[in-house]
């Protein structure tokens, strides 16, 4: 780990991931590094019966995707505004639409994009599955070739 110039921050808008954005902002300011925010949106695999019917590839699915896109864009821009206001950092935005574990596209991008550091929150929004499969952060830490800095949830932080 030589000079840290480019920091990748995967976000899922959970409290730990917001803490990670703030941490990355502080670090980037001290190191003079840039920040790329990344969100990987996974199409839901289960939707309660009666709520709506979704067929992969059908029109409904598309509309769900574009709905998610709008929501994500709003949440991402809020994080960018926060980084700009608090740290004077112009973060870049990246959004991926991909099924499966978000860990894999995160690691892939980190490798392609020549990032020097990944900063992310401990517990993502993957709920109970985390107990059996390990958290997204854990998987990224195992697979990534660049250093990974994992930030705990704000309540757990000392």
């Amino acid at each position, binding site marked *: 780990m030589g000079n840290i110039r480019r920091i990748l921050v995967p976000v899922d808008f959970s409290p730990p991931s917001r803490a990670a954005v703030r941490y990355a902002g502080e670090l980037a300011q*001290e190191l003079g590094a840039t920040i790329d925010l990344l969100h990987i949106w996974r199409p839901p695999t289960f939707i309660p019966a009666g709520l709506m019917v979704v067929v992969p590839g059908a029109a409904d699915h598309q509309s769900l995707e574009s709905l998610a896109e709008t929501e994500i864009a709003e949440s991402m821009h809020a994080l960018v505004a926060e980084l700009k206001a608090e740290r004077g950092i112009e973060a870049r935005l990246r959004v991926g639409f991909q099924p499966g574990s978000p860990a894999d596209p995160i690691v892939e991008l980190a490798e392609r994009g020549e990032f020097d550091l990944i900063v992310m929150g401990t517990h993502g929004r993957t709920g109970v599955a985390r107990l059996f499969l390990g958290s997204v952060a854990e998987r990224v830490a195992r697979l*990534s070739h660049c250093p990974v800095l994992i930030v*705990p949830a704000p309540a757990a932080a*000392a």
Partner: protein
Amino acid sequence: MKRILVGLDGSPREAEVLDAARALADKIGAELILFRAISLPTELPPRALAVPPASLGELLVDDARQHLTALAARLPESVLPRVRVDLGAPWAAIRDAARIENADLIAIGSHGYGGIDRLLGTTAAKVVNHADRSVLVIRSTKPV
């Protein structure tokens, strides 16, 4: 962020973890605590067979402390290097030492705190899932 606890394992790969932690400490003005956890090994050095079992832990702790002290001697004074060795399972010992030392950040290797961990990276995974502070995970470029 002012104090970094660096979890080392005595393997050839620990140098990369220490280098990364040192580089970060230099830039953000943090101090370094070099840490090693001693758990019951599956392989013992021949010397161990000559000592009573009760002092075996002490012997291993002493060896580890000497090794860490040598590493610390090569670090610049600006990072105020200190060493600490505790007995216990590496992931729990690292977590507890970080609490006791009030470290702001834990730096560890992604793999290699003894035995099968060289392949699976279970120590790093457990530290990541159980630590109550930030953890920097560094992957070695050396083969397993």
